[in-house]
């Protein structure tokens, strides 16, 4: 079979990928253009950095940036941290393992807003959690757990919803490591932690990166969870964007949107790079080894 020309392939792909590219391109273009004064829906259009200057000058903007990064980062890290042990546990099939893995993936099929309200009910003042804590004597009286200012409830929900993504990705990766390879490491003295650090993590780092990126981007731009169970004294970037939009300040809303996109990109790249550096490249270990070899060579 001869290979069709790349142009032909490109034309075939056009209706699918082409359309996606056009839409994404259009969105990014509009957002950027709007944030610098074009497509002004209410007043004169024209280039202006005025909206950016105002945005950057606001303390609330920076608080929202920090807060969204905080949620994105921890949601990603915690989801992956929870997914790894589960993926390893489910690596080899055992009786009931299929059922367990199906149940673990159930959150993928429950809409976020439904989950959020369910969660609110469970942790409400008269909810199950409070009842349990009072009954066991850990609390003397029910406490207010909703919308806690530390965003613990929000992060819990984020992990609950996003962990299955990470699990899906990691399960495949972890299963592709041969048992002999793990046994060899253990045979040479590597305990559970060392096996993870030296063998499992480096060999599954691509899946880990993918999971981190997907969860990070999703949690960074979260609106649903934040407005239902998030701290009331904080605003996520999506919330902040909605705040401007609701007041008809489209240019500033666009500015926040561009910020979100930029942070998604930069944050995702940084997280992926960091994961790779820590688990695969091991720069510090390399320097130490290099130094020690030099010293031994110098002695002989």
């Amino acid at each position: 079979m001869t290979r069709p020309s790349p142009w032909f392939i490109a034309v075939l792909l056009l209706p699918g990928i082409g359309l996606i590219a056009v839409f994404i391109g259009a969105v990014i273009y509009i957002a950027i253009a709007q944030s610098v004064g074009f497509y002004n829906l209410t007043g004169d259009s024209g280039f202006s950095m005025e909206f950016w200057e105002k945005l950057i000058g606001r303390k609330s903007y920076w608080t929202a940036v920090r807060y969204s990064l905080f949620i994105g980062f921890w949601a990603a890290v915690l989801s992956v941290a929870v997914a790894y042990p589960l993926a390893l546990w489910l690596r080899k099939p055992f009786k009931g393992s299929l059922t367990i893995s199906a149940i673990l993936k159930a959150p993928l099929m429950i809409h976020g807003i439904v989950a959020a309200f369910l969660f609110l009910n469970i942790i409400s003042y008269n909810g199950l959690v409070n009842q349990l804590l009072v009954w066991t004597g850990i609390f003397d009286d029910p406490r207010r757990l909703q919308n806690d200012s530390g965003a613990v409830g929000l992060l819990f929900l984020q992990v609950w919803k996003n962990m299955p993504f990470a699990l899906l990705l990691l399960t495949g990766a972890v299963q592709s490591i041969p048992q002999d390879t793990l046994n060899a490491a253990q045979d040479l003295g590597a305990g559970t932690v060392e096996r993870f650090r030296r063998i499992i993590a480096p060999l599954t780092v691509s899946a880990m990166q993918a999971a981190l990126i997907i969860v990070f981007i999703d949690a960074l731009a979260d609106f649903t969870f934040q407005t239902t169970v998030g701290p009331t004294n904080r605003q996520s970037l999506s919330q902040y964007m909605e705040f401007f939009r609701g007041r008809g300040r489209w240019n500033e809303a666009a500015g926040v949107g561009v910020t979100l996109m930029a942070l998604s990109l930069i944050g995702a790249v940084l997280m992926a790079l960091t994961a790779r550096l820590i688990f695969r490249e091991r720069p510090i270990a390399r320097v130490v080894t290099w130094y020690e070899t030099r010293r031994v060579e110098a002695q002989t």
Partner: protein
Amino acid sequence: MSGLAAKKIAVRFDAVDALKNIDLEVPAGSFVTLLGPSGCGKTTLLNVISGFLKPTDGRVYIDGIDVTDTPPERRDTALCFQSYALFPHLSVEENLVFGLRQRGMSGADRAKRLRDVVGQLDLGDHLSKLPNQLSGGQQQRVSLGRALTVRPSVILFDEPLSNLDAKLRETVRHEIRSIQQDFGLTAVYVTHDQNEALAMSDKIFVLNKGQLEQAGTPQDLYHAPRTRFVADFVGSANVMQARVVSRAQVDVWQVVTPLGPLMVRSDTPPEADNVLIAWRAEAVIMGHDPVNAVTAKVVRRSFEGAYTDLFFDVEGKTFRVQQTETNLVAGEDMTFSILPDNIVFLSDSVSKVAS
């Protein structure tokens, strides 16, 4: 006692007995081989020794210490895997020092051990390569080196040569043996290749269906197999039924066989009147000898290089005679004699074998 000992090991998987009542002793510094066909439990026994499998019954001792409940990472054993199981993301050098890092050895000591092993195995040109950039033989050497660097009390090999071609297999076989002797390692070597077992071992344990058939030096097993299985598996001896007629001398018995009446010289008496006897294809003398002469027609001849196999049929069974030099061809009659010393009584009863 130093070295390795496994006492009364039994392993059960659900309904299957993978190992039954195995006793294994490997004195320090010796090279012991587990020999047996596929599925006889060799890998299972290695897994018990290295700690990956907890025996249903029995104990494992290393240097006299009971390690049955010690996890693999804290047992002083190192296993060379059939699949090599090199760490694909680590360079050859990092593979080699992996065990030393886990033991928290300092960089200087690590470098010294590395140098020793690299010199021994001639891996100097490959240190910075990744495993997938190596040939099969090189990977095999890295896997060997990775186990050697930790200087384990017991080194275990699970068919380490089965992925190599015949020529390389022979070279590496000698390499392994000489390294084992140089370092004075206590080694357990698993194979289903009888030549490998005979050539390398101080002592061979023959396993069959999870049970120990016979243990002994290569010479013992070859010249004095005790069961039909061992006689057949180690060097494929000729096995046939025999009826004991009389005791001609203290250590000589007269028997009747499909090949006619024969004399057997044995230190141990036959276990019954109807027994199995075995003789080696090469342990015959051509020509007419007054004792144990046999005449038969050659039905097939097969030139094997160093020797030639001559096959003949008696009572529907094929027998084999081996000669280094022969002009006999198929269809000709040959006369040879089997010396009484070269025939052994087997201990399986005829009825058990017939079933």
